[in-house]
């Protein structure tokens, strides 16, 4: 609480510093703008742009120090040479106008917030201690900080108490004020949303590779379960039927055995096909929706399992499928390895994120480093969706798997 308050004050004071510089720069801009009318100001434009950028860079560094990541949006490489080239480059760069907008907001609103935060404690100190030393002053100085005359003890005390109350409110609002002050920088000093592509591209490339890997692994799994499963059963049916036909003439006693085996093999082929199809897209998801499908999973869990599904809204089918498999795999793991007595599945939606949390009170020690475990499968599927898996499973438990899936458009 106190730490938050002091941190907020420190941030606001730091913001006040750049805000004062921003105000100064704004004043320069006004002067240069006026000078442009008569012509000389035009010569100063490149210098003013450079000054604005320098100040913006300073603010970015300050925000980054406080953990608000603001990436510098300026193009990398040689700066253009010459007045025209520099102005043209600045005009073409959306960052220029965003910098100027920030200058205007931070130099005014940011300045006011910083001033309030820094000066208010001084005023409070004066008002709260005023009752102790006002008697020593000449009567014409018996006024509050805002110039209101006070002459009686009750009025004096009321002012002191009021100042303290206002200060408490200011302290409580401190972190929020710091956020307000930083907001213009966070919004305007970062790259324009359409420019911030490189990081996104790098990330997409990685997740796309993950998606392709997951896709290839899925295809391999399907191919294998078809070839080694259903197809083998069907071959067995063919062989058994052939054996039965050949036995008809020679050894009628064998016919029934062979046909019985053939029937069994055909039934197995059907169940294997069902298994493959279920692995592609669980029909229960289509029939009952995610909540219903999870209900069935929880009910079928080896370990008693609680289920809490919040308001999820509309979700893409692929996200629902991934969430379903995550829970299915996680509960299978719980049943097989954890030795838990209870498990809990929680789904919630936070704007563009679907959060799936599976916890158990088992012995922990789950590790997704080794390939082939259900956890590695979860990670592959989730990362293919740009999602994040967080696993916490200390020896002795409990185990908690949290999956965040982006589900915006």
């Amino acid at each position: 609480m106190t730490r938050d308050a002091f941190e907020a004050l420190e941030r606001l004071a730091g913001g006040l510093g750049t805000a004062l510089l921003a105000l100064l720069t704004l004043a320069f801009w006004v002067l240069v703008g006026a000078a442009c009318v008569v012509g000389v100001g035009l010569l100063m434009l490149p210098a003013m742009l450079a000054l604005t950028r320098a100040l913006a860079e300073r603010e970015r560094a300050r925000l980054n120090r406080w953990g608000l990541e603001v990436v510098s949006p300026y193009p990398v490489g040689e700066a253009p040479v010459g007045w025209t080239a520099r102005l043209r480059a600045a005009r073409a760069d959306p960052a220029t106008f965003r910098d100027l907008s920030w200058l205007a907001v931070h130099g005014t609103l940011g300045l006011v917030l910083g001033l309030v935060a820094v000066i208010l404690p001084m005023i409070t100190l004066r008002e709260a201690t005023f009752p102790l030393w006002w008697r020593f002053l000449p009567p014409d100085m018996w006024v509050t900080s805002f110039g209101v005359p006070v002459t009686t003890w009750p009025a004096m005390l009321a002012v002191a108490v009021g100042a303290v109350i206002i200060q408490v409110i200011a302290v409580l609002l401190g972190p929020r004020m710091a956020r307000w002050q930083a907001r213009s920088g966070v919004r305007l000093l970062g790259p324009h949303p359409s420019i911030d592509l490189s990081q996104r591209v790098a990330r997409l490339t990685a997740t796309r590779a993950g998606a392709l890997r997951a896709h290839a692994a899925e295809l391999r799994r399907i191919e294998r379960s078809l070839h080694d499963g259903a197809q083998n059963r069907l071959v067995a049916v063919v062989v058994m039927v052939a054996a039965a036909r050949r036995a008809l003439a020679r050894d009628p006693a064998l016919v029934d055995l062979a046909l019985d085996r053939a029937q069994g093999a055909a039934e197995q082929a059907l169940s294997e096909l069902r298994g493959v199809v279920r692995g592609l897209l669980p029909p229960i998801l289509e029939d009952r929706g995610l909540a219903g499908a999870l209900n069935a999973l929880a009910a079928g869990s080896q370990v008693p399992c609680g289920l809490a599904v919040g308001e999820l809204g509309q979700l893409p089918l692929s996200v629902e499928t991934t969430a379903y498999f995550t829970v299915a795999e996680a509960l299978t793991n719980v049943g097989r390895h954890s030795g838990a007595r209870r498990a809990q599945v929680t789904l919630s939606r936070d704007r563009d994120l679907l959060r799936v949390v599976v916890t158990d009170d088992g012995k922990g020690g789950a590790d997704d480093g080794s390939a082939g475990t259900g956890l590695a499968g979860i990670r592959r599927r989730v990362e293919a969706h740009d999602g994040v898996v967080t696993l916490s499973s200390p020896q002795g438990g409990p185990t908690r798997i949290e999956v965040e899936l982006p589900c915006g458009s």
Partner: protein
Amino acid sequence: MRIVIAEDDALLREGLVLLLSGEGFEVVAAAPDADGFLAAVAEHHPDVAVVDVRMPPTHTDEGIRAAVKAKRLHPKLAVLVLSAYVEQAFATNLLAESTHGVGYLLKERVGRVEEFVDALRRVAAGGTAMDPEVVAQLFARRSDPLGRLTAREREVLALMAEGLGNTAIAERLVVSDGGVQKHIRSIFAKLDLAPTDQLDRRVAAVLHYLDG
């Protein structure tokens, strides 16, 4: 005729044993994996081995590798490989070892018992049995030079590639032996192949030609 089977699927293994025993073959061992198969071959010295391509542990080409190894260790052993699907590389691997007493068939051919038994006997006698599907894929690859052949000649070539002898080809196509021989001479001339009367050399030449 003594047979060893290598097939990891229990039901299919049982089916093969049932079917082949019913046809009068003596199934001396049926192994579920490559190691068991090689051990059984070493122990029983069978005439023919019937081997599934995909077996544990990796379910890829264990059967082919085991068949090639068994063939190397026991040159007189005939090997008939059964595959769930046609993989040209498998057939090529197998034929690279030898065309003598080698077969490669799709699994479901087992159901056409007479043809399957015929192929099995052919392989056991030192001949070759290639699945029509394999031959069709090879044909697709060499469609250009094969265009010089008549439709009937292509049919004869395909049956030759499958490993059938003249009489068998004549029976399949319902023509006379002499007619088949005439077609074969014409095919060899058109494809510029050295004529040979020995069946397995002929199959080797044809398959080698088709494999490009």
